């Protein structure tokens, strides 16, 4: 592989200017098209727009690559959606202003979610574009008394899928393309992929067009070892493919997504059990991980599903990649995730076929439109609201409830719950309202053609066409919250060293004049992450309280809300907007991340942290939860170390953990990298649901990693 040429393919694309019209001219034509079809549905206009862009946009071919996909029409459809959505939002403007205030002050956020989808890539590979069209036609013909709306749905989807089909044909005839690649593209434009190479090419071209041209965030390629296995097996058995040539092909495939620099990285899933309860992990699972590791890239990112039947050798292969510095993996526990999916109404067979969306949000493959990113409430901010009588401390704006004077611990707890319930209620109401307008801005004829229930019903995915039309809501920074509540309990209500208001004034003054008190609070042994019941009980009580508020509540699309318990990197931005907290944290400092302890406070190490975390029933967070580990290289060195690493994972999952990911490094290396970034350009770190180069992180994020690494026992 000529990595340099391949890796730079998206830096400066050499468009074939003869092949089509400029993006500016294209957009003009889109405006005209919108006018011409003014009376038609947004879905139809969108399909026609997509068709226009693929027909007339300039294309580019990179001869050195074995996969092609490019057309010069990015962002046009995203702008189209923004125009439509801004208009739709006028309908609930007042609500939007409230939510904007809450977001600006770091209290809670709530948004429409057009950013998390998953389509049935297995169907794509098995049927190809023509098969998808035929499937639409068949479904259409089976509907008795078809409505105009359904007819419009089928028309739109057929237009959109045909557009991709014709585009492949167009690429196959492009100047400079290799004969083999041209044949591959021509074949997939005419029939279902007939071999491994064609299967990979159809995924590449579909993903690029759906994500970059149609503007839909495709947040997983599905269970790739399952999706591709049949065609892989067939080619290997017939001698068309060797293990080595398949690996080379996979390297081009994986590297393609790497060069695209997909925001937050594109995931796919390997391993775990299938609908029939049998393990999916196969030869291809190993091959994909090997190819990925040899490329030494961190996007796409890989979700590893772990069941009782997943081979230890496969898990250890992944663990050794992580140990070697390639940490772009997350492990997900089948047992607890399947249980969580069933709590949301899925059948056992359906639940077994979950995939992970984006970071680590489970959703049912083919049957669910997973809006897994609708917003979050910051739990530590609720403490600020109680101290400030419902107001944001920095601006004085009323963002919560006026809970009044706090005279007892019971008062404090109920005031916190009141604030939380108020915020969650506001957020969910806003989201449900916004959802009623999705079809005015974001119908998705491509996605809908790739989800069986939508095809069958003739209903768009954003119009409730999927079997499960669920939304999501997150709680944030449970550790900072629990540590703070217990600090108030001890200091104010047990030891009575300050009144509630006196302690509030100390926090508002950001501990000024009370530095010793702050250190005492920060060093307290009563910290989440150390298997201390008195603190962990608070985490359990409140996570349960929040989960009950969120789970099962109906949304605006005929589905329900699902709760999440993780922060991703929002622990930094929300921390900036949160005043000092009773746990010894200064104003503005980061909040705790995901299910982790406050940085550096899990003094018992990874085992204590897991003992704490698994006290919460994580199956009550069906939209995902994740624990980050930071292990010292010496703790996982050698065979002993690898076994211990595996032991940690197994124990976390046996005890009810859902997802786990992390880093293996020592603080010294990180400190050196902070000082001399030029020498550590390749040092990867697992940030949240994605990886980054350590040297590219902000100082505050870097410091957090260093602090975390310092706490790990070597």
């Amino acid at each position, binding site marked *: 592989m000529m990595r340099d040429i391949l890796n730079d393919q998206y830096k400066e694309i050499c468009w074939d200017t003869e092949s089509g019209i400029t993006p500016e001219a294209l957009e003009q034509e889109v405006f005209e098209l919108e006018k011409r079809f003014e009376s038609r549905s947004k879905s139809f206009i969108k399909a026609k727009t997509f068709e226009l862009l693929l027909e007339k946009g300039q294309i580019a071919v990179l001869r050195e690559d074995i996969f092609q996909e490019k057309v010069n029409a990015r962002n046009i459809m995203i702008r189209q959606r923004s125009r439509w959505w801004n208009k739709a939002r006028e309908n609930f403007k007042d609500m939007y202003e409230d939510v904007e205030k809450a977001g600006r002050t770091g209290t809670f956020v709530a948004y429409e979610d057009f950013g998390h989808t998953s389509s049935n890539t297995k169907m794509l590979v098995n049927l190809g574009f023509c098969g998808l069209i035929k499937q639409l036609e068949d479904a259409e013909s089976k509907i008795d008394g078809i409505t105009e709306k359904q007819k419009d749905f089928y028309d739109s989807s057929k237009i959109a899928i045909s557009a991709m089909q014709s585009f492949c044909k167009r690429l196959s005839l492009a100047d400079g393309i290799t004969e083999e690649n041209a044949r591959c593209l021509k074949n997939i434009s005419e029939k279902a992929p007939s071999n491994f190479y064609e299967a990979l090419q159809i995924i590449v071209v579909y993903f690029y067009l759906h994500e970059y041209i149609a503007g839909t965030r495709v947040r997983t390629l599905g269970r790739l070892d399952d999706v591709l296995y049949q065609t892989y097996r067939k080619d290997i058995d017939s001698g068309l493919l060797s293990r080595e040539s398949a690996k080379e092909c996979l390297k081009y495939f994986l590297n393609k997504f790497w060069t695209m620099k997909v925001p937050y990285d594109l995931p796919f899933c390997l391993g775990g059990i299938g609908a029939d309860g049998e393990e999916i992990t196969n030869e291809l699972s190993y091959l994909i991980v090997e190819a990925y590791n040899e490329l030494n890239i961190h996007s796409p990112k890989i979700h590893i599903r772990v069941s009782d039947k997943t081979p230890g050798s496969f898990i250890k292969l992944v663990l050794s990649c992580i140990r070697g510095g390639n940490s772009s993996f997350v492990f997900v526990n089948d047992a607890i995730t399947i249980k969580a999916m069933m709590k949301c109404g899925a059948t056992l067979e359906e639940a077994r076929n979950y995939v992970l969306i984006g970071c680590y949000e489970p959703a049912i493959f083919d049957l669910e439109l997973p809006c897994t990113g609708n917003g979050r409430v910051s739990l530590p901010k609720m403490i600020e609201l109680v101290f400030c009588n419902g107001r944001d401390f920095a601006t004085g704006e009323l963002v919560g409830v006026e809970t009044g004077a706090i005279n007892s611990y019971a008062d404090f707890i109920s005031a916190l719950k009141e604030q939380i319930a108020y915020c969650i209620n506001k957020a969910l109401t806003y989201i449900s309202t916004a959802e009623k307008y999705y079809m005015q801005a974001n119908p998705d004829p491509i996605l809908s053609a790739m989800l069986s229930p939508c095809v069958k019903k003739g209903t768009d995915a954003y119009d409730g066409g999927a079997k499960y039309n669920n939304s999501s809501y997150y709680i944030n920074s449970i550790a900072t919250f629990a540590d703070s509540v217990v600090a108030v309990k001890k200091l104010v209500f047990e030891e009575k060293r300050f009144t509630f208001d006196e302690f509030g004034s100390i926090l508002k003054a950001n501990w000024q004049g009370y530095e010793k008190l702050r250190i005492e609070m920060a*060093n307290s042994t009563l910290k989440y992450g150390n298997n201390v019941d008195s603190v962990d009980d608070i985490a359990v009580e409140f996570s349960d309280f929040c989960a009950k508020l969120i789970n099962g509540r109906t949304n605006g699309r005929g589905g329900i809300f699902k709760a999440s318990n993780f922060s991703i990197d929002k622990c930094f931005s929300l921390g900036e907007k949160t005043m000092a907290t009773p746990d010894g944290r200064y104003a503005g400092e980061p909040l705790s991340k995901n299910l982790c302890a406050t940085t550096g406070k899990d003094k018992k190490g990874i085992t204590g942290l897991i003992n704490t975390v698994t006290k919460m029933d994580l199956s009550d967070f069906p939209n995902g939860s994740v624990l980050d580990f930071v292990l010292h290289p010496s*703790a996982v060195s050698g065979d002993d*170390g690898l*076994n211990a690493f*595996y*032991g940690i994972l197994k*124990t976390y999952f046996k005890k009810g953990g859902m997802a786990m990911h992390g880093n293996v490094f020592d603080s010294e290396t990180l400190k050196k990298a902070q000082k001399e970034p030029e020498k550590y350009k390749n040092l990867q770190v697992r940030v949240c649901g994605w990886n980054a180069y350590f040297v590219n992180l902000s100082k505050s994020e870097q410091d957090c990693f260093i602090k975390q690494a310092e706490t790990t026992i070597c």
Partner: protein
Amino acid sequence: MKANIFEIKRFAVHDGDGIRTTVFFKGCPLRCVWCHNPEGLSFEAQEAFYAHKCINCGKCKEEGFTVLDCLGEARVLYGKEITVDELLPFLIEDKDFYDNSGGGVTLSGGECLMQADFCAELLKRLKENGIHTAVDTCGFVSKEALDKVIPYTDIFLYDLKAYDEDVHIKCTGQSNKIILQNLLYLDSLGKSIEIRIPYVPNFNTDQIEKIADFLRPLKNIKAVRVLPYHNFAGSKYTALGMENNLPETLPTDEEIKRAQRCFSSRNGNLDF
């Protein structure tokens, strides 16, 4: 009955199989020149001061100060009297991790068998709770002490520093006669044993072959590990106010590999 311990280390992965919790007992009869746990040498509790952690909170100048009051956690007390009943819950806490990794609890030190009655009681209670047990010993203990723990110990992690007596005296201050005898005794009883040999340039590197020859006829050696000497303990000596005479030369990876090969390349008993 109480023991004096100075640390409980969780997620210990190199003190026997699987994920383990290691309990470090205070006090050691040997004085190895390379000792990396100087806080475990004395039988008495000792206070250490890590100057770089001091935040000048002034708490230590106040009346009635104990190390627990130190806000910067710069002052640390090594040594705590503890009963079996107090200690046991700490060790059972991580049982799920032992069970899922083939791990357990390791008693180490210092020399844990200098407090053999306590160890025996603790090990017995651990076994009652279904926990795998390992005893990490320097072997310089009485046969009676060994006999007390033998029934409740699944594996002995047995340190051998030298075969030649004069070398052993030079390295540790004591003869190794009892150590070698005790090892033969354990082997004769059929106890599982893992041998651990610190590899310290300029001190015992010529002993590896001789140790291998000595071990060859033994029947129950499950593994032999050559442990590279490191000097990470330097700051602990300073914090304890002890003189730091640690050897300076560190072994190379190549040396360690070569030494380790003495125990795998020969067609003798078991591994070597």
